[in-house]
């Protein structure tokens, strides 16, 4: 069967060749096909390779520029975040120092007020003491006077009776 087929194909070639055809029948089909192919290439170039190639290149450029842009913005954002952190830390430090200053000031004022109050109290106490002393002195002298008077009177009475 296979032999038969083999012979068959050879036979086919032979018969076709006899009729002016055949497997290797080169004729005007060749140049026409070449021209047709070139026309097809030109047409496809105009409606396929160029627009789609353009689209691909545009997209590449777009992606690249967007990427660069995004990277730039990311860097900027990071820089800004760093700046904010920096200024936040600065502000915190400032706030702490302000609080500390205020506390120190308040303590100082408190200490001053306390000492003033103590001084005043001391002064008042001394003044009161002095007054008390004076009054005591006065009372004592008055009392002495009275004692003297009374003793004079007693003396007078005693002596007077005797005199």
């Amino acid at each position, binding site marked *: *069967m296979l032999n*038969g*087929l083999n*012979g*068959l*194909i050879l*036979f*086919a*070639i032979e*018969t*076709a*060749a006899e*009729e002016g*055809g*055949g*497997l*290797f*029948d*080169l*004729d*005007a*089909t*060749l*140049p*026409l*096909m*070449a021209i*047709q*192919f*070139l026309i*097809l*290439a*030109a*047409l*496809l*170039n105009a*409606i*396929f*390779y160029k*627009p*789609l*190639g*353009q*689209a*691909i290149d*545009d*997209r590449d450029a*777009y992606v690249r520029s967007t990427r660069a842009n995004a990277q730039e913005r990311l860097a900027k954002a990071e820089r800004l975040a760093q700046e904010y952190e920096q200024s936040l830390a600065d502000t915190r430090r400032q706030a702490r120092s302000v609080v500390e200053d205020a506390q120190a000031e308040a303590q100082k004022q408190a200490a001053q007020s306390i000492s003033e109050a103590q001084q005043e109290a001391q002064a008042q106490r001394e003044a009161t003491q002095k007054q008390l002393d004076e009054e005591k002195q006065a009372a004592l002298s008055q009392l002495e006077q009275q004692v003297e008077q009374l003793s004079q009177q007693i003396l007078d009475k005693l002596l007077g009776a005797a005199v």
Partner: protein
Amino acid sequence: MRLQAEAIRTHPQNGTEMLNSLHNLIFMPLAELEVGKHYYWHIGGLKVHGQVFLTSWFVASLLIGVAFLATRKVERIPSGLQNLMEYALEFIRDLAKNQIGEKEYRPWVPFVGTLFLFIFVSNWSGALVPWKLIHIPGSELAAPTNDINTTVALALLTSLAYFYAGFRKRGLGYFAKYIEPTPILLPINILEDFTKPLSLSFRLFGNILADELVVAVLVLLVPLFVPLPVMILGLFTSAIQALIFATLAAAYIGEAMEGHGAEEHG
């Protein structure tokens, strides 16, 4: 001529006529095979193969139609057909870039790409489209690459393309490649210019024709299921042949532009 009829005639036996008609009845729509017969058109005294042109027009209009549909509304985010064709284009670009080089490949993308697409769609149309159902006088429709004229035309265009590329890039210095690396190789280098188109055209022609013949013979012998693996293999080899043709064409162009001298530096 019809294969199955001949097959029976080579085994003469009793009841040949009956068997013949039986075979005709069963196999005729499936297992007709005509080799080397052409549907001649006469154009101004020139004979051309009509069946080749008919199918090549089909292939060309298919390519143009798909390309047109794909690029009708080009979007930045591709979808559907545009996506597919962009994939094809990127594939072709990569092919050309690998063979010709990053710097020079762009002008050659249309040529190499059309070679690939035309051969690929031709081969697959021969394998997938039931051309045999359309009857034309004196021949039958098949893949355009089934005809030696088509493959020789493509191969000669490739030769012209690489000569053009070489002369354009290197001027008359292109001839220097014939005596490189040594003048002793001059005859072989000249011979190469003939063997390149010859091997290109016959490789494609032989593969596609042999594939169709094998499928036809198998269909003739066992018309059910058995030819299917061979058909799938045929699809595979068809695609590979298109890839080989386009890759070799790009490689020849790249080689012509590069030259043997530049290769050492590159």
